[in-house]
């Protein structure tokens, strides 16, 4: 709209609800968290909060005031809250993500292969996406009961008692994350692959390229932006990993605390070490802001710029954002 002078105010008016709510429920809490991260601030509850939640007696707030970067240096120590849980989170993410991206690339290239002509694609996609809509906590509890000692899967695999072993527990969490996300990633990559000009494939066939060559020389280079996008959004999602490791490992993140993730520290520390947990939250914020910045750079020319700078020239191919939803 080039002549919208008298209408401009409506733009601002319609933005009010978003920004009021954002201000109250996100910005102010973020700033408060930032403030807490510089305080020597501990809450001890009147009685130990039970498993059912809910503290018993009155809270005692011990606030010794400003303490500079002490919380940050504490959580960043080699055995600090952030260091340990960041390491745990990264490993858990990798264990799920590596098989996920490999399988998804393979499936997407099969589904979009013009010569392979796979049938029942709708059925396969429906089944593969199903675990993504299932409650993550239910899926995790289900896997917990299947892999626990003498559980169904434990029996099937010959009693490895995986949940009590560091590597085994990581594999179970990785498996759940893999099942939840490979369908989603496959669909995303398929959309990218279907956007590739078919004449490129035809030309490569005429030139006698085999499927492997086509995949590495044509498909991969052309879907690089969406691959990068999938990678970074999955990292941001991974940073927020909570339900799965928490339901498997409980508050202690058993075995040996390797299932303690960044976000589970926030949940556990909400009524105790506020200062330290706030510092941890701010560090999560910084890491995700960096990742988010990379995402925006990746989408940049495709979405942000073209949408409002060169509007109406041509419809740009947009990178899909559906996965940013958790």
């Amino acid at each position, binding site marked *: 709209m080039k002549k919208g002078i008298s209408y401009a105010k409506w733009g601002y008016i319609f933005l009010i609800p978003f920004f009021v709510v954002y201000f109250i429920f996100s910005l102010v809490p973020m700033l408060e968290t930032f403030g807490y991260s510089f305080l020597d601030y501990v809450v001890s509850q009147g009685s130990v909060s039970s498993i059912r939640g809910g503290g018993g007696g009155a809270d005692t707030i011990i606030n010794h005031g400003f303490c500079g970067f002490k919380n940050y240096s504490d959580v960043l120590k080699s055995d600090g809250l952030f260091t340990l849980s960041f390491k745990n989170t990264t490993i858990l993410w990798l264990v799920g993500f590596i098989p996920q991206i490999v399988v998804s690339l393979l499936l997407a290239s099969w589904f979009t292969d013009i010569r392979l002509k796979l049938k029942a694609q709708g059925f396969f996609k429906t089944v593969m*996406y199903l675990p993504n809509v299932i409650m993550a906590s239910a899926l995790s509890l289900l896997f917990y009961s299947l892999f626990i000692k003498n559980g169904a899967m434990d029996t099937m695999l010959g009693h490895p008692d995986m949940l009590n072993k560091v590597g085994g527990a990581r594999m179970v969490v990785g498996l759940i994350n893999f099942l939840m996300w490979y369908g989603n990633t496959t*669909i995303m990559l398929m959309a990218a692959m279907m956007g590739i000009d078919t004449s490129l494939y035809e030309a490569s066939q005429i030139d006698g390229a085999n499927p492997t060559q086509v995949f590495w020389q044509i498909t991969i280079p052309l879907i690089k932006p969406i691959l990068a996008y999938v990678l970074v959004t999955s990292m941001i999602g991974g940073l927020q990993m909570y339900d799965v490791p928490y339901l498997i490992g409980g508050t202690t993140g058993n075995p040996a605390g390797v299932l303690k993730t960044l976000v589970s520290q926030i949940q556990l520390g*909400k009524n105790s070490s506020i200062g330290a947990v706030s510092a941890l939250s701010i560090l999560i914020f910084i890491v995700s802001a960096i990742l988010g*910045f990379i995402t925006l750079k990746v989408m940049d020319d495709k979405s942000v710029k073209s949408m409002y700078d060169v509007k109406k020239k041509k*419809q740009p191919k947009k990178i899909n954002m559906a996965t940013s939803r958790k």
Partner: protein
Amino acid sequence: MARIEGIAGESDSQTSLKVRRVVAYVVLIFLVLISLLPFYLLLINATRGKTQSGLKVIPEGLFARNLRNVFSDNFKTNYGSFLRAFANSVIVSFFATTLSVYFSALTAYAIHVYDFKLKKPIHTFILIVMMVPTQASAIGLYRMLKGLGLTDSFIPLILPGIAAPAVYFFMIQYMASSLPLEIVEAARMDGCGEYRTFNTIVLPILKPALAVQAIFCFVANWNNLFLPQMLLDKQEMKTIPVLLQMIKANIASNPMTADTGLMNMFMVLAILPVVIVYLLLSKNIVGGVSLGAVKG
């Protein structure tokens, strides 16, 4: 999805193509099996008794017993009423979804249709906000709500739905491809007010996008554990995922007395609504995942 079938190269080794096809189907069927096996075992285990040891592939006869137990008084005193938690989940998910979808469309409309100075910075700002996990500000939110006595309330679970950057982003992409500004101008010519134009003319055009986003929002809210677990202390306020987490904690701490059959039945009931919705609307949902990506 219309593709030109391979014209050239079709002749080069039909056998290798066949082999590849067989390999593809074998892998796909394997993945289908590992995707469905857990749910099959869940159903079987929901028919089994209190202590379950080993693998069973044929249902036993305790389905009704487990179902009764979920609604029993014993369950109520241990974890709270299932029906109450179910109703809580429905209330929170329904209102949060409605707000998310409506206000994200309104926000996207503001950026898409109107021209004002801060348009581009605001668009970029919302995209940046989208990347920041809500958990990062959770501790501040929790302390703030605790100070206000708002922790045992659905308000902080429902209202933030108004500011949903991911839904906004989806909506604005949809508008860029399916909402011609001429329609808005035509409505203005006819003397339709700006807000009314949005409600009566634009919203109906956005229906497909609203529907897809509503499904995704509902599922996300239904499955949400982190914030409800953080905020809800009172038993009668808890949602399904919070109850589920309590059952797990109980089983882990008292494996001797835990009722595994009951737990499995609870999980069946917890995921059932989403599974039904998914099976009914799977085409739209799977299509919605990449909507906007395939649209030119």
